[in-house]
């Protein structure tokens, strides 16, 4: 296990590379879902406003 973590001496480069990439993978998932949620909330608000004004 420790040999795996050590990555043949390259651990200081390999693991941060994976960390950065997967941070970006998960960030994109969160961003996309948030963008959709925001659009839906905004659409709801617009509908409510129109229902009120009509």
């Amino acid at each position: 296990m420790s040999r795996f973590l050590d990555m043949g001496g390259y651990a200081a480069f390999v693991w941060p590379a994976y960390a950065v990439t997967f941070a970006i993978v998960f960030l994109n998932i969160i961003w996309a879902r948030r963008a959709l949620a925001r659009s839906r909330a905004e659409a709801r608000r617009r509908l409510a406003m129109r229902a009120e004004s009509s």
Partner: protein
Amino acid sequence: MTWTWFHRLGSPPYVYALAARLTPWFAWPAALLIAGGLWGGLVLAPPDYQQGDGFRIVYVHAPSAWMSLMVYMTMAIAAAIALIWRIKVGHAVAAACAPIGASFTFAALVTGALWGEPMWGTYWEWDPRLTSMLILLFLYLGYMGLRAGLEDTQRADRASALLAVAGSVNVPIIHYSVTWWNSLHQAPSVMRFGKPTMALSMLVPLLMMLAGFTLYFVALLLVRLRGEVLSRERAASWIPEVLKT
């Protein structure tokens, strides 16, 4: 030959519903392929004769670079379709692509730097490959900046789409930079004519990662597309129904 399906894609409620239905069909296979690729790449693949275990950075660096280019071409093609056929959804697709592409270009540059330092002896050089990738990042940021900066949606759409299309010239430059010019970055191992220059045991996990990331991109796009479509169709009649789900 009927183009009905193509023009149906121009219909926002159709796109919205389709996107929602398709997303899991891309998201879950993507997760499986990436998990399999990680296992194959980090555990099963043997160390490289030159780079030892350091070469395993390829399993995040190559997919990131692949993403940066594939996403840009998607963005440029969507922008071109929107400009030429006046299909609004094209602008929505392009807009959805930009932050994804920008972040993975950043990932490619950072993972590349982390790989370059132990292997080449430097985090960065102004060689043709690295420089053109940095330009790609600026193109993405420029696209996003134009959209954010221009108040009028139509103008934002048009200007950013023109930039996306013009910048597409950079994509073949990036790919061929290592063969057209002297560079520090080596030639392609996979995306080339002829056999890949990578042993099968190392190559298969890489192909799984590339496929997995591609499906993941489609899933992301589908989610973002729904949001974009909603934002653009301000007062459309189909919206109330869709918000109930």
